[in-house]
């Protein structure tokens, strides 16, 4: 266990419990939550945990601010989409898309790193911003290759699509959320709630794609955990703390920073590849949008920079809020009289306002992120200060 976690445990009981819950929810998700929307969201959680964790490697561990992370995510997604558009839905096309996307990411990130990391942090951030916008423009304008703003449908191998049904039988599922809601609202009818919560799952290629994504996410997470707790990771933290001193100790910091940018870009590309296979549709809006870049930054900050576990917590909370805050406001809106100020404020269309407010509150109350704060509380408790 110590080797798996590289000696870097959550260091908070509450955090450990939350992470275990998330792990179980993602591992058993297709059999615990009914509906295509929830299934899609679980897939996106796996994808964005990779994206945010790889971003945390740059931002949290090395203090490199990059706005080009979605570009590498987009390279992965478009690599698969363009390859399938040109070469069809076979494994050859998939392989060509993966290799092409990874090669493009390595070359571009290497160039970006070596050319730009010699300059000050703010200039590097600006360079990445400019490159990301240039890439977005390129993708939007190269209609014949990328489908422009309409994007491209992804044709994956049959075994990874919904048409593939490996088994004739169905697997039982239990809608845990629906059961809990029914049990709380009607405690006397638990038996009926139990019956209603049962559903059956017909396994398909979509489930296979989901579990490939899930396993890849878990593997990448533990790989990153090992990396940040290795001698290499210690040098990254040294660069974050005092780059000048790290150089005086003999570390060629430009090389380390470039390596981090390349690794981070590669992992974002892998996430993009998985996104394309899961979502089966790629366009600039869902891969290269600047808003998406800001969301990734928010997930990283809310969860807690420089912890990796923060990537998991931040991504899950963010996607839950993004998907269900509007629903929650809809429920609340129905409870208050119409045409009042409160009704206006909790109008479901204003979900971004509340989302922003939640973000401000989380940064105010958890300046070191949720994970950072949980660890501080835990440390205080164990030292008897609280």
């Amino acid at each position, binding site marked *: 266990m110590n*080797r798996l976690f*590289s*000696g870097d445990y959550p260091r908070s009981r509450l955090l450990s419990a939350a992470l275990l819950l998330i792990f179980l929810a993602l591992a058993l998700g297709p059999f615990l939550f009914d509906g295509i929307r929830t299934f899609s969201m679980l897939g996106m959680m796996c994808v964005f945990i990779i994206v945010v964790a790889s971003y945390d490697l740059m931002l949290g561990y090395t203090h490199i601010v990059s706005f080009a992370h979605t570009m590498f995510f987009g390279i992965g997604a478009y690599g698969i989409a363009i390859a399938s558009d040109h070469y069809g839905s076979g494994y050859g096309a998939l392989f060509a898309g993966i290799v092409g996307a990874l090669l493009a990411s390595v070359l571009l990130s290497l160039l970006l790193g070596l050319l730009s990391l010699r300059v000050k942090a703010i200039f590097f951030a600006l360079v990445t911003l400019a490159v990301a916008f240039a890439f977005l423009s390129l993708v939007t304008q190269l209609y014949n290759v990328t489908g422009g703003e309409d994007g491209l449908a992804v044709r994956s191998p049959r075994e990874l699509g919904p048409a593939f049904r490996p088994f004739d039988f169905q697997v039982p599922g239990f809608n845990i959320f629906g059961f809990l809601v029914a049990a709380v609202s009607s405690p006397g009818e638990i038996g009926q709630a139990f019956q209603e919560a049962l559903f059956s799952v017909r396994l398909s290629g979509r489930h296979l794609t989901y579990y490939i994504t899930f396993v890849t996410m878990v593997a990448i997470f533990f790989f990153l955990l*090992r*990396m940040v*707790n*290795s*001698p*290499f*990771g*210690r*040098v990254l*933290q*040294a660069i*974050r*703390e*005092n780059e*000048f*001193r*790290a*150089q*005086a*100790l*003999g*570390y*060629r*910091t430009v090389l*380390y920073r470039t390596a981090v940018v390349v690794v981070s870009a590669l992992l974002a590309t892998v996430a993009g590849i998985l996104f394309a296979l899961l979502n089966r549709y790629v366009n600039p809006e869902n891969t290269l949008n600047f808003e998406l870049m800001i969301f990734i930054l928010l997930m990283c900050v809310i969860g807690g920079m420089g912890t990796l576990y923060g990537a998991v917590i931040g991504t899950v909370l963010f996607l839950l809020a993004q998907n269900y805050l509007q629903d929650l406001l809809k429920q609340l809106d129905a409870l208050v009289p119409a045409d009042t100020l409160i009704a206006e404020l909790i109008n479901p269309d204003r979900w971004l306002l509340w989302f922003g407010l939640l973000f401000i509150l989380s940064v105010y109350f958890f300046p070191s992120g949720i994970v950072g704060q949980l660890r501080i509380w835990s440390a205080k408790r164990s030292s008897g200060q609280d």
Partner: protein
Amino acid sequence: MQRNDLDVATDTSTVDSRAEPANRSGLEIRDLSITFGGHTAVDRVSCAFHAGTLTSIVGPNGAGKTTLFNLISGQLNATAGSVRLFDEDITALGAPARADKGLGRAFQLTNLFPGLTALENVRLAVASRYRIGHIFWQMAARRRDISDRAAAYLEQVNLGKRADTPVANLPHGDQRKLEVALLLALEPEVFMFDEPTAGMSVDEVPVILDLIADIKKHQNKIILLVEHKMDVVRSLSDRIVVLHNGELVADGEPAQVIASPVVQQVYLGTSPDQPAAAGSAVS
């Protein structure tokens, strides 16, 4: 390389990756200069430093001592002149490459990794010395050889009990000691101490001075020391180099240099025929 009481008494499997210099002719600077705008901070300074010798670089404030250190260790690029280490021209190399060649530097203003513990700070220096910084597949905590070595260097500067304290929480004196521990952990061929005892309490100073004396006595290394305390300079130095307004004005044995009329004039601001003032300043 002779091992001695400064070496860590740990059984380490770490491979010494720095080659023993074939030729120990030492460190040599030739016509080294740097100009900031119109101001020449170091002006055509030439000097050679030999293994087994402790050379103190002294001079009034603003004389260019720390700038000269920065030029030698690569923190600044010289406008003109050259730096040679063991007959190799290292002028074009940056600070990391020079550190790799064996130029170790402790800073005048404490320059550490404040968010990391004292032990992690020293471990970084040891990891650099043994070139394991690129290893990403192995847990740092499992490198007991590196951790033990780092812990031993902390013990040498009396910081063993502070190993797990974040540097930001260490008192100033302990941070100065840690600065020296980082230099020791680099195991350099050239030790460059820039006012190592500045800001330390009186009872802490001997720890550092004894360490420097030990290096001088037991290791055949080049030691450069920038120091304002003349009693320290006199007790430790084999040789003194005096800078004034960026120029080298004297270079020789301590007694000879301190008695030199030029030094009395430019460094102490008095002539030798004013013995009371001169005597009090140098003692």
